[in-house]
């Protein structure tokens, strides 16, 4: 990406563990990659890491190199759609984008028709990529997802990135949770996207505690496209418009005034520019004002030279369209509508997008899925936030900018948004942390990322921690977190016992016949050594008290004294016992308990925090109190 890493304080010249980084293998479960992309060049790369046990499936013009060290595709139904390539080659663009965000090489002057220009790079440009193509135009089947996990774990990847999801499901009826569990068992952290179903509550997906769930935030670069009217007024809309129109002005029409009546469409339909609703004769050569955000395909099909859309759904990110377009808020859109209605020959022009600075960034974008977690309410999800809005990264030459019919723009770099884009930022950051700390467990890496995340504010994110988790990821700080909340398979099994999973199931899952849910092995959710604290109550009048037992491992200075600083959620008291932890050695573990008591305010997230501070490291965990629905 050309901006997000710098925005996160992770500059091009950041300190690197070059040797270990070149041994890191990032497993990308996605739509494949475009192997010829400059982002995946292997120039200067040494031989494959000796631990690599994977292979390269090379049909249909796909070859691996010392950067893309493995590639496989999975299509259990064998049903290839139109334009799909039975190869790990990416025909969608998504997989190339995510892989280059996590581990792409430095590519100077990457841009989309001049937009977002800069040096594109992943978090770990020296790392290797293993490609597991599981998603196709029709989606990503769970059978294929599990097949990819089965291979990736055995192949020897270090981190798995998976920007895919569905509804939140029971842990052992969800292919991603199952795959991530076995990854964790084998020392591999799985980084997951949290979903794009926000801002509604309880929409967060991929909620297993052994995986990292990532929300999406903005960066300080916004793309805007101006529409200028003939009355000298101009309005800036959110859009990635790469087109330059060659006339000074074009006739401007309102979609509601140009219905395709011959096909039976009314103005109530054509105002939204729905498929087939516009009269080609009246629309040809015009710019059409539509009352809804859409793909732009209908105005394009009807012969429009451009479209101006208006509503209030997604005003915090910019979409691309297959024709000159911009997207206005309802106030500005209303003014354009009034201009059309009060002018005999209204005309307008849509200008190519420009970049402006967003001073509010970072904030969690509206579409990013929100907590609370519907499977285990007292495990806070999402875990953290990373950039996922208007990200420029590598693309596939087998598709176009939008993938829409009528779009002819084939590009090596594209700008898109989603928690799919934030997930590989976290993946890359996790790989970066692992390159400095190769022996750390998945939970330790996750803890390091969460406890060093920059706090975000509820002032611009109403859903607070349910939007952003522990905060905004900071890869540089995460390398030296001071303390980590570590956990392993046995800890998650105790948690699962407490969640009501049977002895029989857990013996099978662990492969350990002695594993069982006894009284001593039956942990409450509050005792899982998680780097955040969530406390739900069933009603706004219910007084609740929860005791969270935690253990931190010293990974900072051998001799250090950490003091607890607490901010209690409104209506709660928080007591930490002991409130001082004195370490005498690296790797030493010390336990403490956090008692949270009070009454949650209805309809809001009560935010607090616990920070362990030794004067060098601040190890911060969110404390969230809420009324569960």
């Amino acid at each position, binding site marked *: 990406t050309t901006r997000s890493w710098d925005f996160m304080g992770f500059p091009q010249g950041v300190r690197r563990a070059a040797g270990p980084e070149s041994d890191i293998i990032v497993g990308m479960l996605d739509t494949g990659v475009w192997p010829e992309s400059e982002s995946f060049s292997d120039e200067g790369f040494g031989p494959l890491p000796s631990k690599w046990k994977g292979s390269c499936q090379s049909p249909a013009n796909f070859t691996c190199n010392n950067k893309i060290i493995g590639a496989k595709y999975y299509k259990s139904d064998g049903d290839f759609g139109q334009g799909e390539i039975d190869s790990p080659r990416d025909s969608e663009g998504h997989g190339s984008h995510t892989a280059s965000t996590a581990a792409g090489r430095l590519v100077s002057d990457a841009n989309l028709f001049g937009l977002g220009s800069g040096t594109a790079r992943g978090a770990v440009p020296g790392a290797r990529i293993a490609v597991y193509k599981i*998603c196709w135009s029709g989606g990503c089947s769970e059978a294929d997802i599990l097949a990819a*996990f089965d291979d990736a774990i055995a192949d020897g990847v270090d981190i798995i990135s998976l920007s895919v999801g569905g509804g939140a499901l029971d842990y052992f009826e969800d292919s991603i949770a199952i795959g991530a569990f076995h990854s964790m*068992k084998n020392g591999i952290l799985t980084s997951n996207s949290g979903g794009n179903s926000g801002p509604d509550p309880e929409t967060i997906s991929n909620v297993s505690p052994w995986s990292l769930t990532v929300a999406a935030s903005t960066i300080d670069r916004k793309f805007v496209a101006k529409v200028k009217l003939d009355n000298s007024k101009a309005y800036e809309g959110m859009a990635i418009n790469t087109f330059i129109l060659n006339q000074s002005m074009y006739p401007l029409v309102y979609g509601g005034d140009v219905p395709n009546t011959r096909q039976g469409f009314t103005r109530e339909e054509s105002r939204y520019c729905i498929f087939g609703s516009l009269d080609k004769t009246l629309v040809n050569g015009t710019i059409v004002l539509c009352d809804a955000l859409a793909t732009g395909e209908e105005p394009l099909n009807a012969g429009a030279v451009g479209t101006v859309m208006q509503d209030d759904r997604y005003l915090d990110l910019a979409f691309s369209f297959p024709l000159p377009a911009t997207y206005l808020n309802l106030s500005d859109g209303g003014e354009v509508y009034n201009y059309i209605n009060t002018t005999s020959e209204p005309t307008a022009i849509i200008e190519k997008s420009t970049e402006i600075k967003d001073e509010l960034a970072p904030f969690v974008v509206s579409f990013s899925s929100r907590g609370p977690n519907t499977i285990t309410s007292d495990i806070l999800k999402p875990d953290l936030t990373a950039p996922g809005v208007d990200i420029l990264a590598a693309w596939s030459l087998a598709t176009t900018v939008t993938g829409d019919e009528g779009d002819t723009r084939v590009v090596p770099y594209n700008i898109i948004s989603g928690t799919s884009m934030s997930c590989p930022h976290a993946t890359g950051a996790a790989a970066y942390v692992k390159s400095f700390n190769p022996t750390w467990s998945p939970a330790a890496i996750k803890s390091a990322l969460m406890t060093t995340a920059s706090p975000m504010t509820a002032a611009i994110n109403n859903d607070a921690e349910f939007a952003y988790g522990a905060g905004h990821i900071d890869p540089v700080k995460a390398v030296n977190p001071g303390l980590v909340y570590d956990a392993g398979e046995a800890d998650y099994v105790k948690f699962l016992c407490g969640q009501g999973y049977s002895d029989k199931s857990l013996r099978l899952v662990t492969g350990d016949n002695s594993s069982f849910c006894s009284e001593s092995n039956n942990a409450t959710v509050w005792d899982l050594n998680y780097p955040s604290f969530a406390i739900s109550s069933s009603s706004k009048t219910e007084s609740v008290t929860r005791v969270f037992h935690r253990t931190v491992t010293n990974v900072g200075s051998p001799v250090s004294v950490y003091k607890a600083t607490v901010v209690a959620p409104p209506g709660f008291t928080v007591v930490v016992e002991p409130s001082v932890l004195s370490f005498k050695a690296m790797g030493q573990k010390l336990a403490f308990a956090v008692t949270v008591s009070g009454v949650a305010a209805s309809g809001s997230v009560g935010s607090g925090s616990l920070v362990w501070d030794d004067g060098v490291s601040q190890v911060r965990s969110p404390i969230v109190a809420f009324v569960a629905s």
Partner: protein
Amino acid sequence: SESDQKANTYIVYMGDLPKGDFSASSLHTSMLQQVGSRASESLIRSYKRSFNGFVAKLTEEERKKLASMEGVVSVFPNEKKKLH
């Protein structure tokens, strides 16, 4: 009923790999035969490198029988997830 006879694709998750020598396809085929499925046609894929399980076309009755078998953690439909 007709719906009971209709075969859908399910994932049969069986947890960690068994210790020692293990022939996944033999085990999975045998399990399918035990529930009455035409194993050679219904088995789509075996998981055997990092964990144990398989994908198969099953009728509702076969699904229920498999779910109650020794060694099975869960049986769930092979649905599609979406890119985010």
